[in-house]
């Protein structure tokens, strides 16, 4: 009955509310720096920038689609088994994304395979399903998923940029600042590129915590309304 009533309202519209759903997660409601969702994968995939980019796209697709599907089914899911249903929806979509990536870009799939599987346990998917999709209509839930995926992706790219630049001296795999020891071996490379000693700490997990902490600091210094006053 509830679904018949919903069909009367226009299914797809794009007004102020909808735009807010897309832009809020980029700034004042960012999944990583404000809602604290999806931190584990942000630590694991940010050692290289192209890994982070593919992960961000995969998470955006899974979050948007699982939000839409769960929102369509929300009136027929019993409260007691809702988590199992949500996880099975998420797991199905993750499998679809995983197989698609395997067919489209095999080398990146090889590099990411474990983490793509772990999108099932990425808190963003489950967190948005619980907090938004279970109480809202499919189209809005879909937009909410896209917005949160983008907000997650932005932080991922920023963190990966610093970790790859300082840890390996490269951006998207292109060498930007070379290692000093490389210069000593191959003196034909330009000397001004080779003054830096790679910082191996940046490749380890604790450095991701430090970089995200500093990103949060910068974000809150810029957006004063987020400052923790407690």
């Amino acid at each position, binding site marked *: 009955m509830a679904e018949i009533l919903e069909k009367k309202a226009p299914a797809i519209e794009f007004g102020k509310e909808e735009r807010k759903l897309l832009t809020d997660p980029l700034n004042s409601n960012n999944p990583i720096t404000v809602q604290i969702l999806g931190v584990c994968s942000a630590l694991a995939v940010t050692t290289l920038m192209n890994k982070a980019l593919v992960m961000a796209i995969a998470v955006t697709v899974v979050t948007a689609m699982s939000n839409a599907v769960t929102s369509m089914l929300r009136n027929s899911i019993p409260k007691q088994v809702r988590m199992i249903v949500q*996880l099975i929806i998420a797991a199905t979509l993750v499998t679809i994304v995983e197989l698609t990536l395997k067919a489209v870009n095999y080398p990146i799939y090889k590099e990411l395979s474990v983490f793509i599987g772990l999108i099932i346990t990425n808190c963003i998917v489950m967190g948005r399903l619980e907090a938004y999709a279970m109480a809202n209509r499919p189209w809005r839930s879909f937009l909410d998923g896209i917005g949160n995926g983008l907000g997650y992706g932005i932080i991922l790219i920023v963190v990966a940029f610093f970790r790859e630049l300082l840890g390996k001296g490269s951006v998207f795999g292109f060498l930007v600042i070379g290692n000093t020891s490389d210069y000593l071996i191959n003196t034909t490379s330009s000397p001004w590129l080779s003054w830096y000693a790679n910082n191996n700490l940046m490749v380890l997990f604790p450095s991701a915590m430090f970089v995200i902490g500093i990103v949060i600091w910068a974000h809150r210094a810029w957006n004063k309304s987020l400052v923790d006053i407690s």
Partner: protein
Amino acid sequence: MGDLANIFIKSAFIENLALSYFLGMCSFLAVSKSVKTAFGLGIAVIFVQSITIPVNWFINYVILSENGIFGIDLTFLRFILFISTIAAMVQLVEMVVEKYSPSLYNSLGIFLPLITVNCAILGGSLFMVSKEYNFSQSLSFGIGGGFGWFVAIVAIAAIREKMRYSNVPAPLRGLGMAFILTGMMGMAFMSLMGIDLTSFGK
């Protein structure tokens, strides 16, 4: 018996799920504002972890493996079956907590259902598979892993309660400081990796 104690100490301290592998960070950072709620969530994680790992051991070796009851290799179903077991267990814990401790239920909020997607739980089950433990070893590993996570979250909650009296720059207060503290605690726990437990037994 010494073997089981070794696994317990190793999983609780040396290979701490939260501070060495950085698993389960979402709830670790969000619920560590006060020691009381951190304690409640830690106990819930110990409970879920020490039930799901033996149950998943059973699923992995009795149902999914080639020598199991079906006689065929079904390991591609591992993810979906493990996560269903975990979801069922967390749903059970949620119902119990809601009934017997409504105040804890309210303070944990969305992070109680999120234990399901706490990477530490699924990660623990997958480590159990990759380390090829037997049943009693996986039970010890489950309790140890949960206990290590519990120790880590109570420790950071205690530090964060003390941090309230420190003069931290305003934008860094709260979450930002929690990230940096976790990074530092992780670096401290990295030094424990050098301990060789086998030499204690001799």
